[in-house]
């Protein structure tokens, strides 16, 4: 069992969820409630990671973050190391790759709010900010929970983008999924088997927790 890889995976999943929850919430709410110019294009861009080969996305991100790119050059000047093949670069890639897993469940949850509950809150004297906390979020909570679980589990298991952008540096960018690949290549089936079982367990527990909580919230409001 590669505990370093396990720690990197957990750290990456936690950070990705921490960044994507507020950012995804804002984007999901905007798409659900506001008039967005070129909505079709924005939604297509958000959903693109679902169908794009991870290697293709990884290639573009690597090009964007590499030392030769303006972003990569600025990053190296500021922090003294390149963005590509660093944990920060991996996190940026993970955030982009997980965008649909975070945004779509929350967007659907906001769109499914009962008709007129938001206007009803406003005419009840609640500011848009109070309406968000007192009405929108409690009702869209199952979507937020699903978004968290999907993002977390998906990051734990991501392989292609992580390999392209992170480069499998032990203790820095080598995740559990990459370690499974390494161990399999080295015919260490026992270690690969243990780590695969851990990833399977984490995925099942995360999804089950989300479904369970969603069901409870649904029954509570039903």
């Amino acid at each position, binding site marked *: 069992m590669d505990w370093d890889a396990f720690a990197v995976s957990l750290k990456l999943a936690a950070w990705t969820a921490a960044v994507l929850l507020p950012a995804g919430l804002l984007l999901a709410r905007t798409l659900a409630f506001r008039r967005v110019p070129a909505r079709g294009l924005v939604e297509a861009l958000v959903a693109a990671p679902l169908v794009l080969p991870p290697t293709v996305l990884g290639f573009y991100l690597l090009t964007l973050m590499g030392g030769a790119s303006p972003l990569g050059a600025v990053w190296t000047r500021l922090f003294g190391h390149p963005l590509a093949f660093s944990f920060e670069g991996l996190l940026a890639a993970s955030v982009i790759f997980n965008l649909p897993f975070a945004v779509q469940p929350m967007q659907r949850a906001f769109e499914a709010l009962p008709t007129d509950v938001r*206007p009803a809150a406003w005419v009840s*004297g*609640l500011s848009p900010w109070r309406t968000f906390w007192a009405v929108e979020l409690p*009702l869209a909570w199952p979507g937020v929970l699903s978004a968290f679980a999907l993002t977390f589990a998906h990051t734990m298991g991501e392989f292609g983008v992580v390999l392209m952008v992170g480069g499998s540096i032990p203790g820095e960018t080598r995740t559990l999924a990459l370690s499974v690949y390494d161990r399999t290549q080295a015919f260490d089936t026992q270690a690969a088997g243990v780590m695969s079982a851990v990833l399977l367990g984490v995925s099942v527990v995360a999804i089950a927790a989300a479904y369970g909580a969603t069901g409870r919230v649904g029954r509570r409001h039903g």
Partner: protein
Amino acid sequence: MADGLDVQLRETAPIPLELELSCAPGELLGVVGPSGAGKTTLLRAIAGLHPLGAGHVRCGDSTWFDKASGVNLAPHRRRVGLVFQEHALFPHLTALQNVALAMGHHPKAERAARAAELLTRVHLQGLEGRKPSALSGGQRQRVAIARALAREPQVLLLDEPFSAVDRRTRASLQAQIAELHQGLAIPMLLVTHDVEEVERLADSIALLDNGVVRLAGAPSQVLRDPLAQRLVFGEG
């Protein structure tokens, strides 16, 4: 107009509106007209839920919208009580919490007791702890009325509040509105399709068609007009 509601709206799209109407404190103005006449849009415009091109919305000393002077208060800054057609209660909150949430202007400690008082006023004592899903259609609409009153509104707007309930419930809700009408000294607007209802409850009627007030006055006078017969009853 110093007291009451004074509305002048002009709008070309998406729904054409060109109307002026007023409603005195304590008056119940019935708004009738065929589907698509702009009745619901009128109420939403007063509440600030429908953007307006021109005109003004004033109530008492407050100006909520005035295109000329650039005033346009957000819905939560207008003291409006609005009862929606489909109640629009907050499904995750109990009846008491639904009402208490509209009492942001009162200290937190007082809200529950005041909300309970309002629920008693609409004859829902004992049901404070129920969520909307555990209430009947008529009970939900009573909670919606209590919530609208919780805001201590300067105007009460009722958007076809009886359309989604059965005949018996409708009769008891009408009695509830009549009772409120007796005790409230604010302008009340009731949008309805039901002519008998408006005749029984309203002090005056505005007949809307295509976003324009075609007739206004006492119910007996307006409803006897051949135009009303044609637009409301579909005769002639």
